């Protein structure tokens, strides 16, 4: 995410003007200011009530516009509509829909402003609404920042309710029975005499009626789907190999391509030697693209073989070639001139008295490396461009490709696909642009471009590196002050620069997960420093919080130990936000915190709030001759409302595993300007034998619904580091931990 936020900022004036012009923010899309895209090509006899519900005489189609990269959001969106529409799983189809401004994401505004998520003062809520207005005016559809449920929770239920009431009205018009005497269930309107009229039978009549607008949503006590375990709609396809991801899509006449671009990212290609690649079996063409070369063949593997035969002469990278120089650039950034913002300055950290502790922390570059290597199918003709791939920012995608192929944007058609993991990489556009560059040179032919895994690593935009310099004081068994300075390149600046936008203001992701902590430390200062742009970086699951949160919580743990206090009790003493306190209390209870542990065992706790969701994790480890073994993990998270307990557990578990695995053994380092890690053997995160039992509990005390894709990632690293300290006395201040300690 992030990219929306900055566009939002730039367009703030538009948003403000909209507020003054009387646009009513806070009412949702049932009264859409954007046209309903489903109304454009509506077939005779079909009805659409809003951008999410389409009913024909044959079937019911629900539009789930948030991209599904594995987080189960297609099912969750459908469930929200179905809850109020009174249709059951199996009675409707789900479509990703076509990109459209009507699907703008209003929840992106939450993360776009420098307020703590717990801050719900009127002025803050007003600012959020204004930012939301800007996104609405721009029609910014997008998936990211764990916003899908926050964006959808009200408006999709309202969409379902409005459609239901309109269908009832159509039934009333047909039968003469008053609406108040009609009921709905199982995709049908029920008359008092028990007769049922299927929604599909009412479509034609409903289409003639102005859709009902204001509908009261059902009380949570009446929910039959939300909060109950669901069987996600893609589970059968994903368990039988029958669900097509983007990489599996076939378009008639399609050819297979792969690319090699300068692994010194952003560097030019000075020239290349084909070395007989053109004569290799199956090779159709070799074409130049920006900073690299592409092979087009009749089979993916033949394209791979040919690209490996080609020898390229690469130009220099626009960043330091050696990793050590990247770190030097970060170290040199802790200076007044590069101060990005002072996020907190409570009390007086300098005047506080006590025993002083200082420490320095590091967080490395890390790759996204989703299991499905990046790929895209593009077909360019003189009249139009069609794109089949999975992506999180469809509107920006269409704009960027239109600029590249010089088509009008309304002639660029993106067909979103199931995504085999993203972790942020599917926010980037290079792979689609590269496919479009090839297709543009062979107009008419659909080109499927697939990265080799090696290209995927070489051409990733990894998580940014960061350093934290911390100091604090302890006295009388308590933590009395803490100061944390973080220096990092701006991930938002880097990401946005690739779509031609300069980011004004401080980057809230540099200190994310640290400045917004809910502790009542009498003396607390948090400053961020903006390092120069180094290797190009991008949002990686939870963005800034996995690094900054690791620094903050690990150092807090250091201070607590120095004070001689108990890590759980001291955190509970300091925490002053009720739902966050509850999360910590629950994880203490769940993990039986304080109970006796065996020899060489230790447990650590960490608490971080990111994307509005407070999460606490306790990890237990054992030290053996072979190394550290993770025995068990406990995760408690507050999401406001759990939509599907099964999916909730999956995301929580997956986030914790992602956080632990990368903290243990993943980093991207640069040498000669190129990423040194080329495949999973050098960047494998967690495998099954290292995966502990994980006990999970979801809480619903927060007053807003939150997404769970990201917030359980950040606490995993500090909880693991704190556990290792408890077991061994060794404090690890740098990820990946395996540079300092072995794991079983």
């Amino acid at each position: 995410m992030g990219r929306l936020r900055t566009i939002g900022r730039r367009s703030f004036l538009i948003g403000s003007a909209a507020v003054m012009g009387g646009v009513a923010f806070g009412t949702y899309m049932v009264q859409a200011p954007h046209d309903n895209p489903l109304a454009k090509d509506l077939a005779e006899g079909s009805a659409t009530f809003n951008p999410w519900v389409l009913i024909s005489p044959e079937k019911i189609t629900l539009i789930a516009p948030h991209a599904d990269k594995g987080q189960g959001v297609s099912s969750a969106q459908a469930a929200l509509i179905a809850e109020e529409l009174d249709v059951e799983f199996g009675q409707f189809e789900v479509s990703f829909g076509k990109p459209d401004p009507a699907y703008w994401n209003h929840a992106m505004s939450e993360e776009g402003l420098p307020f703590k998520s717990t801050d719900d003062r009127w002025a803050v809520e007003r600012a959020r609404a204004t930012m939301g207005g800007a996104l609405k005016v721009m029609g910014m559809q997008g998936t990211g920042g764990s916003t899908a449920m926050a964006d959808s929770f009200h408006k999709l239920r309202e969409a379902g309710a409005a459609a239901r009431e309109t269908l009832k009205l159509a039934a009333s018009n047909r039968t003469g029975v008053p609406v108040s005497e009609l009921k709905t269930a199982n995709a049908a309107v029920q008359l008092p005499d028990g007769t049922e009229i299927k929604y599909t039978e009412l479509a034609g009549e409903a289409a003639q009626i102005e859709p009902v607008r204001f509908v009261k949503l059902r009380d949570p006590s009446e929910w039959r789907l939300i909060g109950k375990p669901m069987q996600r709609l893609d589970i059968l396809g994903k368990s039988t190999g029958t669900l097509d991801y983007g990489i599996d899509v076939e378009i008639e006449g399609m050819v297979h391509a792969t690319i090699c671009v300068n692994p010194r990212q952003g560097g030019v290609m000075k020239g290349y030697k084909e070395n007989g690649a053109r004569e290799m079996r199956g090779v159709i063409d070799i074409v130049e693209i920006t900073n690299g070369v592409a092979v087009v063949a009749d089979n993916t593997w033949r394209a791979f073989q040919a690209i490996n035969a080609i020898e390229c002469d690469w130009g220099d990278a626009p960043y330091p070639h050696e990793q050590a120089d990247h770190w030097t650039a970060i170290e040199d950034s802790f200076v007044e001139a590069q101060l990005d913002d002072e996020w907190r300055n409570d009390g007086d950290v300098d005047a506080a008295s006590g025993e002083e502790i200082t420490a320095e922390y590091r967080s490395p570059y890390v790759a996204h490396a989703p299991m499905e290597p990046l790929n895209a199918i593009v077909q360019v003709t003189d009249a139009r461009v069609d794109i089949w791939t999975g992506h999180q920012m469809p509107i920006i995608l269409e704009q960027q490709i239109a600029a590249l192929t010089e088509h009008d944007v309304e002639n660029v058609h993106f067909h979103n696909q199931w995504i085999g993991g993203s972790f942020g990489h599917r926010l980037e556009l290079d792979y689609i642009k590269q496919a479009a560059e090839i297709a543009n040179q062979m107009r008419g032919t659909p080109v499927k471009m697939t990265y080799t895994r090696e290209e995927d690593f070489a051409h990733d935009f990894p998580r940014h590196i960061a350093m934290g310099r911390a100091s604090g004081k302890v006295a009388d068994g308590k933590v009395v002050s803490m100061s944390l300075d973080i220096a990092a390149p701006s991930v938002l600046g880097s990401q946005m620069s690739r779509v031609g936008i300069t980011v004004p203001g401080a980057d809230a992701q540099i200190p994310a997960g640290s400045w917004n902590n809910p502790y009542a430390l009498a003396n607390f200062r948090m400053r961020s420093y903006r390092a120069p742009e180094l290797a190009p970086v991008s949002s990686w699951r939870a963005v800034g919080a996995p690094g900054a949160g690791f620094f903050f919580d690990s150092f807090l743990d250091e201070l607590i130990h120095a004070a001689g206090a108990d890590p759980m009790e001291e955190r509970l003493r300091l925490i002053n936000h009720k739902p966050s306190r509850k999360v910590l209390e629950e994880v203490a209870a769940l993990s039986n915190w304080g109970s006796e542990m065996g020899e060489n065992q230790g447990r650590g706790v960490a608490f971080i709030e990111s994307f509005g969701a407070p999460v606490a994790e306790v990890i237990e480890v054992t030290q053996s001759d072979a190394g550290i073994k993770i025995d068990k993990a406990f995760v408690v998270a507050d999401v406001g409302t759990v939509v599907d307990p099964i999916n909730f557990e999956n995301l929580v578990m997956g986030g914790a595993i992602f956080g632990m695995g990368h903290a243990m053994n993943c980093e991207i380092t640069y040498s000669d300007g190129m990423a040194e890690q080329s495949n999973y053997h050098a960047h494998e995160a967690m495998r099954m034998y290292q995966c502990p039992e994980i006990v999970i509990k979801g809480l619903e005390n927060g007053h807003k619904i939150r997404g769970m894709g990201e917030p359980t990632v950040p606490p995993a690293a500090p909880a693991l580091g704190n556990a290792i300290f408890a077991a061994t006395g060794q404090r690890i201040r740098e990820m990946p931990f395996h540079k300092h300690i072995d794991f079983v």
Partner: protein
Amino acid sequence: MEFTVNGEKREADVEYDMPLLWVLRDELGLKGTKYGCGVAQCGACTVHVDGVAVRSCQLAAGEAEGSDITTIEGLGTPETLHAVQEAWVEHQVAQCGYCQSGQIMQAAALLDQDPEPSDEVIDIVMSGNLCRCGTYPRIRAAVHTAAKKLQEA
């Protein structure tokens, strides 16, 4: 070259060294078997060759010629699920799901060899199959469930 794939005779005009993975995907149109790493590091391409779980990205077509190959599509179908697939659905293992064809094929081969595997055996055998969404605890549970189903069958 001729292969028996999911019980049917199939032919492909390919180089000796084209990996079976790409024969299946790009020549025979069987897309359930996934490309993940190309170097036997992730297991997404796992299929059964003469009953043995094999990384199809590492097996040359020429070496597979004449073999009896089972892919995820041949293990079971949405209408007639294999016990392992049934367990995968019941436990709702998949998130992004991209690695799951390989996980399921590996698990089915494991249960052929060891009908009642311990957690330790599951961990050892399944650790070659990478999942980046973090479904491992559910995979473990689903393997146990599948083992029970197969024993009861």
